[in-house]
């Protein structure tokens, strides 16, 4: 990474016109194979490096480049010029840690083995094909990803972390009684041999079975079991409630509620740097702050927020290592330092989905949801989420229903959690910059709109 050496040299001998400067390099290499109906149909591969520069004098300026030939001095100068127009003074402080390089283990997947990826894809395709005779086509995508992050600043901070993992997705199309259906399942893992074939079979089979011959359902308040994928889908947007920036500027529905109860005692949320259910792990954030486990909701009480250095300073606390760059629904290059989670997840409970259904007795098992980005308002906490599910009678699945919308407020939803399942599911999100997860949740009452 010779270009980084150039930046290191400049940071060591920073011109007098700069007080502080920071360089964050994100390097990604990925190889993706797509196997469909018995053959490889698509392959993608990439090697890219992104350079994010931040300079702080009285004010902060940013620059970003993918042009590795650009002179480091010139890129820093661009950032400095930008800072001249900024009016907010002394807002950004750089990480004052003086840590030397630290490299995490990246040897596991360093020699990319395409034949093994192909063999794994083939095996997964064959396995999934057996789950349902209605399946008409299958596509399996395996992505081998190598990520390396460096954060270097003029205080002497120089850290490096790396991550190698596989992301695996199987998508099936099925046809039954002239109707088309699709289902997919995702998993990430550090080793190909750890792909949980049984889980893929189980989840894809369940997803298809929960869609067939669906009818309608009357509008009303129901006891509901939200599937782990549905809760995860909600948390993909709802994690922003816990952003220290949004909390501080009043745009989170939880603003001002730190320390207060917002959910039932069965509802806890944690942001972790690693988790056994995913290959993802985060040693440092993009300001070089070490990642740490942070409990956000503990037994229904809001006990923590996710912070970068700026948001932490504003609330007189310390960064939680949640400086990130990839915002939801942004059409631009993510150069700003915002707040993003690492592996944010609702804590699982001890009960299986079957026992939660039995406990529910009568109600609706919501198995699929769509489009949570546009149907959750983080400022008000209001949501109206299109979904489908299965009616439960006497603790057993009775019939499938579609054309539903669940609506309410997130805080009400959290306070009505009666139990959390033991089926925690974790998914990567937003250019793989973080992960979101949840178990199935049994909800006391939820408005479901149907017919």
């Amino acid at each position, binding site marked *: 990474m010779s270009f980084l050496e150039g930046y290191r040299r400049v940071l060591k001998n920073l011109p007098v016109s700069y007080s502080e400067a920071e360089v964050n390099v994100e390097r990604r290499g990925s190889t993706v194979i797509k196997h469909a109906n018995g053959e490889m149909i698509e392959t993608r*591969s*990439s090697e890219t490096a992104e350079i994010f520069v931040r300079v702080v004098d009285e004010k*902060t300026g*940013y*620059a970003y480049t993918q042009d590795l030939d650009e002179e480091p001095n010139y890129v820093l100068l661009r950032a400095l010029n930008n800072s001249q127009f900024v009016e907010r003074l002394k807002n950004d402080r750089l990480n004052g840690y003086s840590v030397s390089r630290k490299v995490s283990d990246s040897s596991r997947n360093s020699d990319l083995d395409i034949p093994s990826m192909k063999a794994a894809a083939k095996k997964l395709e064959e396995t999934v094909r057996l789950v349902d005779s209605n399946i008409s086509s299958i596509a399996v995508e395996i992505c081998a990803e190598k990520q390396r992050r460096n954060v270097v600043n003029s205080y002497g901070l120089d850290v490096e972390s790396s991550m190698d993992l596989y992301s695996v997705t199987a998508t099936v199309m099925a046809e039954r009684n002239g109707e088309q259906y699709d289902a997919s399942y995702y998993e990430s893992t550090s080793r190909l041999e750890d792909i949980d074939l049984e889980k893929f079979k189980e989840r894809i089979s369940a997803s298809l079975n929960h869609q067939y011959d669906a009818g309608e359902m009357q509008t009303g308040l129901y006891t509901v079991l939200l599937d782990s994928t549905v809760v995860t889908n909600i948390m993909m947007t709802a994690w922003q409630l816990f952003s220290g920036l949004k909390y501080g500027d009043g745009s989170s529905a939880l603003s001002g509620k730190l320390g207060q109860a917002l959910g039932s005692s069965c509802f806890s949320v944690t942001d972790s740097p690693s988790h056994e259910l995913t290959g993802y792990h985060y040693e440092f954030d993009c300001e070089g702050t070490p990642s740490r486990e942070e409990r956000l909701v503990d037994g229904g009480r809001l006990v923590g927020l996710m912070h970068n250095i700026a948001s932490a300073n504003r609330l007189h606390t310390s960064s939680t290592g949640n400086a990130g760059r990839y915002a939801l629904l942004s059409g631009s*290059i993510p150069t700003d330092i915002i707040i993003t989670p690492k592996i944010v997840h609702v804590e699982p409970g001890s009960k299986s989905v079957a026992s939660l259904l039995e406990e529910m007795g009568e109600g609706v098992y919501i198995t699929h949801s769509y489009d949570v*980005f546009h149907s959750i308002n983080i*400022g008000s906490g209001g949501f109206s989420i299109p979904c489908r599910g299965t009616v439960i009678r006497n603790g057993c699945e009775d019939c499938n229903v579609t054309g539903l919308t669940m609506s309410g407020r997130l805080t009400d939803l959290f306070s009505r959690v009666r139990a959390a399942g033991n089926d925690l599911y974790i998914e990567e999100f937003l250019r793989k910059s973080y992960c979101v997860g949840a178990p199935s949740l049994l909800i006391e009452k939820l408005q479901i709109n149907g017919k």
Partner: protein
Amino acid sequence: MIEEDSLKRVIRKALSSGGDFAEIFIEDKDELNIKCSGGTISGITTVRIRGAGIYLLCGLKSVYVFTNDLSLTGLVSCAERASELLNESAGDLVGDTNFSLQKATNPNRFEIIPSSVGHEEKIRVIRETERAARSAGGKLRQLNVDYFDTDQKVLIFNSEGLHSEDRRITSRLRLQATVEVGSHSKYEWGDFTRPQGFEAFRTKNDYTSFAKDFIVDMEEDLKSSPVKSCAVPVIFEAGPCGTFWHETCGHQLEASAVSRNASDFAGKVGQVVASEKVTLIDDGTIPGLYGSTAIDDEGFPTQKNILIENGVLKGYLCDRLCGRRLGIPSTGSGRRQGYSYAPAPRMNNTYLDHGKDDDDEIIRSVDEGLFVKRLGGGTGGREFSIAVSEGYWIKDGKISHRLRSGFVLNGRGIDMIKKVDMVGSDLKTDSGGFCGADSGLCPVTSFQPRMRISLMSVGGEG
């Protein structure tokens, strides 16, 4: 600039172990982002994106490799990687490709290149927008105004000898606000988008009235009443309600969905798939629209594509690879956010063509129903969902009271477009936004004349 001989070498290398088509896509893009938070300029970022992708096809198989190392060594290594990944038996000896520039004119004309304007002028626009938003009344708990401009140059060379170029310039303001009315508050964002250079801000009233309307609308929304769940006739207003078409059937008419059998429209060309009132078009050539370009991202000139005509399915949106898979030609719809994505069939400017029904009569025809003036974002597939940003109740043929936003319309696209029973005569365009899909975020518009659906389920609050 990379020498032509070097490009020839890269193409030869890419095809050295098989493959019948190779392409080099080079992107050089500058962006500027100025952020104004709580009334002060809080950050300015300049962005430089530069990279290339090598696309290799062998029959129905594809390989895409990309890098931001634009040195000859970097490109050759990228081509080698593509060739290795294809891993076919040795290809035919590839002769020299002679590139021939195929000129195409971008329908959007650019007068003031953003980089020719200093930060001060752009900050002035932000200030005026900020002031307009704050003068709109209402209790603003938080307000951010962000300015963006982009200048993307793309160069495409392929083994068929094509050399094509395009330059796409856009300007955008993004407003994010949290507004309070009594004990209620809501957060919202909205974009002022133009496929133009800095001339987009020549008329102050354009962007200041956008900002005022944005805040006023949030306030009015907070004062409105929720809608109950129901099944009623729904009227979609002319203009931006074209998102309905983008989500209900646009994505399913992309050949990628059709070729993997994920579309309800697969195998139905020539069949009636919608009401006879429906003529649906996608057109990347319309001047002044956010989704217009000279060429698609495979070098094909954009064109007007009639997808559904009087209810009959006429065709799909197609790129080169899906064209091979379906045995149909490209429709100039192979698009991508940039070099880090392989092309995929995508929409440009999608619209429902005008009909003959009287606009006022469409409202008068409804005893009780929903009038949707503006839609938010949504998702499409076999089943779609779209959030309503501005909706009103219709009572006895007249628009009655406003309904609180946040409720969604959902259903199966192919069923819903059969229920279109009135289409107005006044087609209005929209300023557009981004569509996110397999090949990244692409600028698009979708629009329509006023239109009525005879019966639709509305997911309300009880």
